[in-house]
């Protein structure tokens, strides 16, 4: 989806404002949203890709006027409702009004360390040969899917060079929508800053971005 979350290249957001001695969280509710989001993933059964799509598909004005953990909260609520884990009324009330939905998995305190340490690798066994090799010239396709994608707008149509072959990775464009992992080869692709931003960009500056094979055409 071409959304405001696809921020690369916008110029109107003002200066970056680093905070000295920034705490990990700025309020107790941020801690809880963070933890709830991680803890609800096993019972909810959604993927990271789906979570990302829920966040980026919030109404654009809401997305831009929310803080980071407000966005997480809104997306978590949407996921909970969408998966039938609770109703909007229950979320408003903060009280259960219907039986809980049976869930297969639940994160226990004693499993937190092992679960985090294992993570969720995205690398899958390759069923095909990689189409591109290091050093090859490619062009990012001009795709404009209405669903989730990890092909930023600012690289579409631009020519770059394969600089890494990362193996076959879960494909977010399908995985986010429950259409399966459909692993595809993932490549590190280098673009010159001038190719991306025109002649005003500094010669020698480059950008590298990871792109799946369906995002790329040979040149």
């Amino acid at each position, binding site marked *: 989806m071409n959304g405001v979350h696809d921020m690369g290249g916008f110029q109107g957001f003002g200066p970056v404002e680093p905070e000295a001695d920034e705490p990990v969280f700025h309020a107790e509710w941020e801690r*809880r949203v963070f933890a709830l989001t991680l803890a609800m993933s096993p019972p909810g059964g959604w993927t990271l890709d789906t979570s990302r799509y829920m966040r980026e598909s919030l109404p654009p004005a809401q997305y831009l006027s929310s803080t980071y953990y407000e966005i997480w909260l809104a997306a978590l609520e949407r996921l909970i409702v969408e998966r039938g884990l609770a109703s909007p009324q229950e979320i408003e009330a903060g009280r259960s009004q219907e039986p809980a*939905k049976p869930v297969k998995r639940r994160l226990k305190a004693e499993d937190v360390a092992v679960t985090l340490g294992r993570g969720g690798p995205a690398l899958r066994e390759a069923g095909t040969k990689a189409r591109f090799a290091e050093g090859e010239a490619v062009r990012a396709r001009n795709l404009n899917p209405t669903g989730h994608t990890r092909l930023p707008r600012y690289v579409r149509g631009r020519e770059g060079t394969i600089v890494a072959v990362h193996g076959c990775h879960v494909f977010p464009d399908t995985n986010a929508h429950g259409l399966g992992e459909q692993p595809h080869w993932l490549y590190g692709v280098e673009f010159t800053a001038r190719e991306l931003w025109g002649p005003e960009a500094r010669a020698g500056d480059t950008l590298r971005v990871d792109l799946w094979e369906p995002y790329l055409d040979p040149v």
Partner: protein
Amino acid sequence: MNDEADHHHHDHAELSPVAARVRALESLLVEKGYVDPAALDELIDTYETRIGPQNGARVVARAWVDPAYRERLMTNAGAAIADFGYSGRQGEHMVAVENTPDTHNLVVCTLCSCYPWPVLGVPPVWYKSPAYRSRAVIDPRGVLAEFGLSLPEAVSIRVWDSTAEMRYLVVPMRPEGSEGMSEDALAALVTRDSMVGTGLALTPEEARKAGRVT
């Protein structure tokens, strides 16, 4: 939070609307049996006190003192980082990228907030801000200037946009004046920003001024 949640109705009024909403949500999800309150506390404690940039700093310091380790880190970052026991969520596929006198690396996630949690913890607010996400790719020098960092003319910038599950750890250059320092002492020179690329490693002098070493 567990027992707080039980009587959230009486102290609701003191909370901000979003805090009240989160408390109600937690209360609901606990009541439904989906989440274990102790697991929430454990998750928070993990990222608030145990996993943070001190992890990455130890990795970088070892790479500075141990050429064989540096070689492993640059060719198979995941395995090298696992030497310290760091692994997992948001760091499943690690790549280390090294600054050189010619090239400075800068990491961003334009689409959301991808960041190498096992070595850096969860990202700071600026990393997740529209200002950083939008401008790091089109105006990296302007962004670095806002961090007080001005690179020599001749240095090129290589920006890494974390669109997939690959996570990038910048290995900053070892600062001048750090010759002969121990691995532990060197780790104190390695800031979070230097491992994202919005800063350089501190000189021993800077680290002293910043109160990072005594």
